[in-house]
């Protein structure tokens, strides 16, 4: 029996699955979270105090409880309710909601950043409410917040590592398992760090570049 075996080429498929799983759940969370965030952000920018308070309180909880606790609590809770979910589904739901909580603020500020005078100008041309939203507010508002959007998206990729606690075999959990087997943490951890860095760094640079360009 061989408990400890060194890292070998045959592990690359295993690692690749971990990487793909990380990418997969991050992409799902970013897309779903952004769409929900767009909707919620719009509702918040448009609606009166009481609706805002309600929505705000809900978003507040998502932002004030550690993601790791949310993940554990949600999987356990939904299972106890009798609707067991696999780690991917449960992780996607929580990560998407968590993303939404931050995205909605991003988009809300985007909508708020469109000057009322520009909206009035559009209305004065005869555009109706929905046309103004569709052709003026969304495109202008979204452009303004692209860097912040990217910032949230990148933090989601990094936070996706936490989905490992509910058993989703993403990159970091894959790495952990390999570390258990090989007892070689350094090489494996550095590899993992590099992977995140290689995704996150260029994109964050790009975000800064866009931000600077927009300032001019």
């Amino acid at each position, binding site marked *: *029996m*061989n*408990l*400890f*075996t060194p890292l*070998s080429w*045959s*592990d690359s498929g*295993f690692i690749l699955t971990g990487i793909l799983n990380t990418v997969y759940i991050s992409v799902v969370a970013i897309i779903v979270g952004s769409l929900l965030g767009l909707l919620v952000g719009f509702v918040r920018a448009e609606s009166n105090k009481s609706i805002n308070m309600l929505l705000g309180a809900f978003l507040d909880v998502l932002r004030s409880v550690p993601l790791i606790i949310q993940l*554990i609590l949600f*999987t*356990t*809770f*939904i*299972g*106890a309710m*009798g609707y*067991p*979910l*696999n*780690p991917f589904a449960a992780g996607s739901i929580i990560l998407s909601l968590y993303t939404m909580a931050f995205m909605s603020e991003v988009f809300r500020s985007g909508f708020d950043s469109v000057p009322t005078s520009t909206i009035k100008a559009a209305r004065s041309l005869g555009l109706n409410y929905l046309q103004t939203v569709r052709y003026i507010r969304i495109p202008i508002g979204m452009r303004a917040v692209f860097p912040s959007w990217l910032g949230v998206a990148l933090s989601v990729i990094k936070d996706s590592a936490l989905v490992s606690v*509910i*058993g989703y075999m993403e990159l970091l959990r894959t790495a952990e*398992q*390999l*570390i*258990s*087997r090989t*007892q070689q*943490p350094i090489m494996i951890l550095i590899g993992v760090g590099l992977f995140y860095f290689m995704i996150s760094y260029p994109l964050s640079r790009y975000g800064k570049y866009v931000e600077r360009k927009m300032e001019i």
Partner: protein
Amino acid sequence: NASADKLDDVIKRGTLNCGVVLDFPPMGYTDKDNKPAGFDVDYCNDLAAVLGVKSEVINLTWGDRIPSLISAKTDVVVGSTSDTLARAKSVGFTYPYFVFKFQVLSKKGVRMASFDDLKDVKVGAALGTTYETEYFKYADSKGWGRDNYTSFKSENDAFLGLYQGKIDALISTNTNIATKLTSGQFDGFVAGPYVPNYDDVVGLIAKRDELAWIKYLNLFLVHQIRDGRLNELHMKHFGTAVSPDMVQSLRDNK
């Protein structure tokens, strides 16, 4: 339908979701192909086989075991779960299926003649395990304090911590320690004293209210002993026959 229970569910579904802690060799670990292996994994497979369903081994940490049951991610956890009365308020235990001793593994050169020697060294164990609780109980009764104690998220982390030198001694089960020692990676370490006056009797766990299911599991365990499968797997994973003491104790406890 309302009267269907877990047993029916599993058979109808055609897969058994069986939770195992895969960082607890030789009870559970991943082999060089990163596939689950170990005594508990074989128990899962045996159980699936007698049910006539596919075996799906689900990898858990110690802390995951209960959440995985409550959230119905697993149907049963074959995870060396100590059958404490506190836990039995929350989950349903089967008859015992294994008995461990809690033992100290320490660096060579660290004086470890008796359990009391732990007082003066850095000691650690996996968080939330029964041996952690037992150690605390003992340490508290002697008034040692907890400054020299480190928790680890998992069994593997604890061994990695000992290996790296974060701690001088750890507490784990005799089986786990024996396996680690035979692996050759822990040559600089020696097995030490047992936790005094404590046998760790472990059972399978399932949801507390699934009585029919638990009954079935009980019968399965009895058959594992009766059919010689326990002994076979003990030979396979520990290299020795199962001791008559343990068999006796399993039979007594039932």
